[in-house]
């Protein structure tokens, strides 16, 4: 292979380093009015009255909208649509959108917001799952008494028998702060409505332009064909932009109201309040082990504070249970999950969706139990390895499994056996494993279409344009898809252009979430590449009066194998276009039915055509006087099946590890008792800088998945979760304190060390 497997800079990298890349806020918008949103000053209450008269009369104001202007609820799962772009009747979190204004400029729009009168009747505010579940609590949503959005209960294998047979059973509680995506680009949308044609064009920060398209047509009651969604450059997502977000619908409503263009640009604080990230989570976990370290039974209970609306909540609480499996052999699991509504911004999917907190709990308990049994952390993992192919109890199909090779490399590279026991007090080395899906096998909206579709368009000039609805949000998907197609065609990458995510041009795509693009859209690009190769080869064979199976393509010449008869690529293109005109081919991918999971309730969440694996070791030194932890180094091995773009795989794995680091060490949202966000900026949120970030050495492990494109699986999520337990394990070794609550900030670590000392005395 020439292109696939190489290290390629991003196909759109030059735009990014020159400042020419236009993100949503950079789009020319001199013609656009400015949209501003009035936000609820309370976290829970009934809206008694809204009076917009004075705002409407204010000079420079072109439109004012409220909940009256959209009565179609939306959400992600078809069974859980319970959010409106502008609150109707009730507000459920601080900062929820209540009204919006389009005006000549931002200052005018903000003045107009002050003129909108809203009267609220306050209700009790619940900022914890516990408070929201307490007897007598007012339901946020009338149809959900007890504020339980979804309760999950399932059991696989003989759990009680497993615990009875175990040599060691331990149970532990864990607590995780809510974290945020904190992508660098604040939210922004530019909506343009053409009243003559009744058409809407939306340019926004979406990871899934298809959902935006669907939601806009539903909420605005427009035929979907009258909506066009275009994705400009997007400054990161990490899950924040998977759902359609309120400001996107608001921008569209305003644009229609004014009959023109409206730009809505959110502040950083407002972007934090949009949220949709990893929920505050409480876990109770019990594991039973044999003396050998073999896992016999697992019993877990998870409570997630999901925030005010459904969003992806059901998926998140299901993932937390489903992905207990498919990393190790687990013969019996009982899982109970509670997704709880509370008066905080809605949670949603975030890198490592659903798996991260549970993985910290699991690896941590496994580690501490191994220590009791006198087993090395690597040994206890090796006692529980799978062998591919393997079908888990909950019908997850593992077809490739590079975890053993990951473990071997991390153990060797970190100098584990020689160095760990020799480290002085205050210094520690910890390790852990983690995994993730390469795309959810069941799409959220079942339409009967393939899971992914890619078009390749070939015209007279010999250029090839790859058309995909998959959103490149910085992860490098456009580069990867071009590389796959170039490899399939045997042509140079420089022949390719990629048009990604413009609904007027590109085939619909289910979007950039759950790490589905490399695997699913990659497979579609491979199929499209092969099809165009067939077209060109057939044309060349016709010109050369040979059989297509005798044609080979070497260095952009099509040759009759074993002869010197050949034509150039340009001649082959001319031959292919003769009679038919420009050629567009389609490649698709559908997940085979046997990889789509089981039949039990909730079985749709967890199955994937490919599972990726990671192991990592983290070395820390702890200042016992201040509680400051210095991250010395991370060694991480990731099994991505096959690295189509080695440079991008390294970058993705480093980014994932580092995001895990943030959650482990410093990041958290926090709310006052009234539900007001207290850390809705980068500084208080606790995002690490270059000064706090460790060197991260990446080893790529290639297990060659039988179903992935050239054997590839995902590369950007699996390594995140493992950082958290590897880190807390390293701290435990350094100072003898095991963290069961994250983030492990210096003040918390100091307090824990103090408690440990008191306890010893």
């Amino acid at each position, binding site marked *: 292979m020439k292109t696939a497997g190489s290290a390629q800079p991003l196909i759109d990298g030059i735009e990014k*380093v*020159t400042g*020419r890349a236009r993100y949503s806020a*950079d789009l020319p918008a001199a013609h656009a009015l400015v949209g501003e949103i009035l936000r609820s000053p309370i976290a829970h209450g009934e809206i008694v009255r809204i009076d917009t008269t004075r705002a409407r009369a204010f000079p420079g104001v072109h439109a004012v909208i409220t909940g009256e202007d959209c009565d179609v609820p939306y959400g992600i799962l078809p069974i859980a649509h319970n959010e409106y772009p502008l609150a109707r009747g009730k507000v459920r979190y601080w900062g929820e959108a209540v009204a919006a204004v389009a005006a000549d400029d931002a200052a005018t729009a903000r003045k107009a917001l002050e003129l909108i009168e809203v009267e609220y009747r306050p209700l009790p505010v619940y900022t914890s799952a516990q408070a929201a579940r307490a007897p007598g609590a007012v339901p946020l949503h009338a149809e959900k008494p007890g504020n339980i959005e979804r309760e999950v209960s399932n059991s696989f294998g003989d759990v009680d028998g497993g615990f009875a047979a175990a040599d060691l059973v331990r149970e532990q509680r864990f607590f995780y702060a809510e974290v945020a995506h904190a992508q660098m680009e*604040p939210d922004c949308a530019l909506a343009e409505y053409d009243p003559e044609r009744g058409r809407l064009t939306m340019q926004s920060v979406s990871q899934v332009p298809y959902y935006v398209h669907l939601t806009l047509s539903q909420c605005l009651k427009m035929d979907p064909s009258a909506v066009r969604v275009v994705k400009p450059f997007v400054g990161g997502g990490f899950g924040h932009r998977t759902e359609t977000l309120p400001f996107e619908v608001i921008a569209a409503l305003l644009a229609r109201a004014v009959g023109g263009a409206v730009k809505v640009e959110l502040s950083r604080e407002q972007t934090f309040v949009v949220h949709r990230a990893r929920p505050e989570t409480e876990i109770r976990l019990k594991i039973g082990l044999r003396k050998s370290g073999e896992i016999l039974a697992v019993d877990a209970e998870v409570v997630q504070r999901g925030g005010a609306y459904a969003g992806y909540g059901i998926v998140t609480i299901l993932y937390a249970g489903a992905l207990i499996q498919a990393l190790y052999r687990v013969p019996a699991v009982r899982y109970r999950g509670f997704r709880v509504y509370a008066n905080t911004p809605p949670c949603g999917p975030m890198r490592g969706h659903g798996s991260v907190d549970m993985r910290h709990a699991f690896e941590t308990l496994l580690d501490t139990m191994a220590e009791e049994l006198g087993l090395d952390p690597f040994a206890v993992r090796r006692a529980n390895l799978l062998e591919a192919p393997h079908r888990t109890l909950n019908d997850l199909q593992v077809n490739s499994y590079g975890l053993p090779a990951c473990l071997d490399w991390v153990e060797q590279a970190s100098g584990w056996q020689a160095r760990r026991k020799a480290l002085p007090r205050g210094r520690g080395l910890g390790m852990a494993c983690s995994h993730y899906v390469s795309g959810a096998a069941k799409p959220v909206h079942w339409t009967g279409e393939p899971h992914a579709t890619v078009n390749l368009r070939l015209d007279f000039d010999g250029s090839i344009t790859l058309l995909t609805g998959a959103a490149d949000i910085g992860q490098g998907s456009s580069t990867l898809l071009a590389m796959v197609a170039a490899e399939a065609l045997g042509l140079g990458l420089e022949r390719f252009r990629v048009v990604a995510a413009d609904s007027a041009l590109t085939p619909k795509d289910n979007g950039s979430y759950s790490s589905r693009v490399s695997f699913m859209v990659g497979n579609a690009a491979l199929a499209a590449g092969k099809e165009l190769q067939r077209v060109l080869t057939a044309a060349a064979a016709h010109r050369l009066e040979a059989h297509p199976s005798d044609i080979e393509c070497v260095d952009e010449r099509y040759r009759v194998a074993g002869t010197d008869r050949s034509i150039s690529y340009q001649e082959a293109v001319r031959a292919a276009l003769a009679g038919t005109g420009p050629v567009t081919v389609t490649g698709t991918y559908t997940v085979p039915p046997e990889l789509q999971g089981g039949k039990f309730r909730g079985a749709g969440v967890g199955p994937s055509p490919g599972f990726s694996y990671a192991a990592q070791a983290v070395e820390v030194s702890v200042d016992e006087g201040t509680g400051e932890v210095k991250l010395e180094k991370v060694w991480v091995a990731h099994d991505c099946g096959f690295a189509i773009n080695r*440079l991008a795989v390294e970058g993705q794995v480093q*980014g994932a590890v*580092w*995001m895990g680091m943030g959650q482990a060490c410093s990041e958290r949202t926090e709310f006052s008792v009234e539900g007001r966000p207290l850390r809705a900026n980068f500084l208080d949120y606790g995002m690490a*800088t270059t000064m706090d970030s460790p060197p991260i050495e990446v080893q790529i492990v290639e297990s060659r998945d039988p179903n992935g494109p050239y054997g590839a699986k995902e590369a950007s999520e699996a390594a995140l979760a493992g950082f958290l337990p590897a880190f807390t394990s390293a701290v435990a070794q350094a100072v003898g304190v095991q963290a069961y609550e994250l983030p492990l900030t210096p003040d918390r670590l100091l307090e824990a060390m103090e408690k440990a000392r008191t306890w010893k005395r």
Partner: protein
Amino acid sequence: MKRLLSLVLNGRRREDAIGETTLLLDYLRETLGFTGTKRGCDGGECGACTVLIEGEPALACLTLAARCEGRKVETIEGLAGTGRLSRLQQAFHEKLGTQCGFCTPGMIMSAEALLRANSHPDEAAIREALGGNLCRCTGYVKIIEAVQAAAAKP
């Protein structure tokens, strides 16, 4: 009240009407359409708007445009003056010092200021110089490698 601002932007002398309280960031992005300089936060948190004023890094979101009277201001758009990438731009591109790209202009401008002052910085100096520029994609690993690679070029 509007006033006239004369400055040298990316090597070109220009004169524009600005408000007394117009921020340099708004002048660049809204008045001129130089959108390479990014707004990533609500003021002074992220470094995405880093530009050079008289060769020194500055946050355009915390600088009044009027303060640039008569001064030389450089933005990311000025670095590839001849159409060819600067050594830092080339290195960020080739080493994947950019993923989503949103922090990249600010990151490159901070690194540019560093390399002008110290052509062979060690890793600690690079980390310190970029300490005010947040990135959410890379974990900074390949950003630091990119600056090292640029510094190593003749």
